[in-house]
């Protein structure tokens, strides 16, 4: 899987690259408009992360050119502008997603994987990990082929964890993803503890070979036992 990261801030570019490489993606980068245009039209990418404000040009112009060529699939806009107009224009031009900075790396992982998954669907849409299977279409969870009932939030949490296997998922990232913007002021995120606790119990009882471990009290990680 080849991903192009178009981002002029090198520090940000590095972190994104480092994070995505951990997921075994092949990453290429472009830091300005012209390099980006060149790479976009010379090579094919499975996914393009596109910053809007670039030196020498706008990311939206790149998107327009891509649309002309019919290559505008699988673009995720990453922008510091939380402007509805930009978002609408970007999505109208065929971008798949719009991520406002600052975002969590776990969120970026999830979005990238969701898009790649949509592209490479062969009829079924499942994530497999150890002896477990999560069916995203049916919203079912199986351990050793046996169904384990999960409530809506538990499913969303597990789904997010599975998009970030073996990776740190901070509590904030999880809260924003599963509970939405309403947690932005939450001074403590302990409210999600009970959901995680229930999920852990269900994983244990169904003898799943995966477990949720705490990471320094700041977040969690889903690992194989």
């Amino acid at each position, binding site marked *: 899987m080849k991903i192009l990261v178009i981002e002029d801030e090198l520090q940000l570019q590095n972190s994104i690259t480092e994070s995505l490489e951990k997921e075994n993606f092949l990453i290429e980068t472009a830091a300005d408009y012209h390099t980006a245009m060149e790479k976009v039209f010379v090579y094919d990418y499975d996914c393009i992360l596109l910053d809007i404000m670039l030196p020498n040009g706008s990311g939206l112009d790149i998107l327009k050119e891509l649309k002309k060529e019919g290559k505008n699939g699988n673009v995720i806009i990453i922008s*510091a502008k*939380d402007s*509805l107009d930009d978002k609408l224009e970007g999505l109208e031009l065929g971008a798949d997603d719009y991520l406002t900075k*600052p975002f969590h790396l776990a969120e970026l992982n999830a979005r990238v994987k969701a898009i790649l998954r949509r592209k490479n669907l062969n009829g079924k849409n499942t994530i497999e990990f150890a002896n477990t299977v999560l069916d995203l279409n049916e919203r079912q969870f199986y351990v050793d082929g046996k169904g384990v009932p999960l409530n809506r939030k538990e499913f969303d949490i597990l789904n997010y964890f599975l998009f970030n296997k073996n990776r740190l998922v901070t509590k904030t990232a999880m809260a924003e993803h599963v509970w939405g913007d*309403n947690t932005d002021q939450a001074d403590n995120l302990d409210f999600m503890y009970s959901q995680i606790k229930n999920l852990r119990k269900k994983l244990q009882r169904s003898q799943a070979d995966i477990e949720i471990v705490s990471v*320094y009290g*700041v977040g969690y990680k889903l690992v194989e036992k």
Partner: protein
Amino acid sequence: MKLLNQSLKYLSLSILAIVTVWSVVFYINMLNEIKSSIDEGLENYKRLIIQNAKIDSSILTKTYFDESFFTLHEIDRETALSMRDRYADTIIYMQDADDKRPEPEPVRMLTTSFKIKDRFYELKVANSMVEEDDLIDQLFWDVIWLYIILIASIIIINNWVLKKLWKPFYAFLQQLKNYRLGSTKKLPEAQTTTKEFKDLQYAVNTLLRHSIAAFDQQKEFIGNASHELQTPLAMVTHKLELLLEKEDLKEEQAEKLVEIFQIVERLVRLNKSLLLLSKIDNKQFFDNQQVAINPLVTQTLAELEEISSFKKVETTVVENGRLNAHIDPILAQVVVSNLLKNAIFHNVENGTVSIGLSDTTLEICNTGKDERLHPEKVFSRFQTSRSKSHGTGLGLAIVKAISDLYGYRVSYAFDGGIHCFTVQFSTGG
């Protein structure tokens, strides 16, 4: 006070003064004119009497006023020689048709002397004169009527002329009132040939163009500020996330990193809130539409359900009406969720949040610290109670800013341990 009434106020006062002065002068002049004309008559009368007396000496014995209105008295030489013609106002008893008995009437009297056959006589000739108080009375009413008629005609003329003259001005003013920076495309225009109005239009439009430029600049600045701050914040978050993924961190290092991470997350929240606040302050939300608040409240409560149940806070909704507001839906959501979050987070264990909805108001009451908050400071920026709260301190300030933007009234009350926040939506839509 309208311009029309203003000008009327000054006009009526100055006309009153002018008419008063004029009527006094007019009265004095008229009286003088009357007197001098009577005096001429008396002079002529005097000559006739002296002439007649020379022919008919019986006249010389007439010593009291009767129908012919003169008297004669013989006087000694010295008195006669020292005497000069003297005109004076005096009073004589007279009776006319509408008088029951003789009444004192003002007369003009000429006193003079003459000589016939070496004998000296004093002659008094009188002529009835206009009664001054009658004259004043009559004149007074005439002036009052004049004044009333003048004012009435000025009102009518003013109304007509001013309305006609100021029509382009009011049309221009209306356009200005409806003008919204950033959303109105056309600059206001005055349909007129009047120089002053054209100048006004030019001045206003110059000012507007400056404001538009400043507004655009500010918008750009906000966009840039968000870019400048959000990107470094993203970098720090990412670096920390990657660092925290490392397996070989010492417990102590990890602890510090987590602390830093939490501070950065707070910075992120703060920056988000500040951006929202500056957007509201710059009136950059104007996608107003009819928003039903009732379902919004229920929906937000459902989203917050897990947090409230974790905090062991019970929420109840009492719907006494359907609250609709004409507002940007994003901002409506912000108002409702900020108030609800505030009520849930600043609560006590086993506390309650009760939400009341009427046709015009949203009231959110919660149990909390038994301490009255400052009713005005509670809405000001960065006002947090000294509790363990790590909120941004901007939640209620944002509610206030949105309320101000739409002219809603937001208030705080405290009674018996219950904190109540009320938003009075203007007219319900």
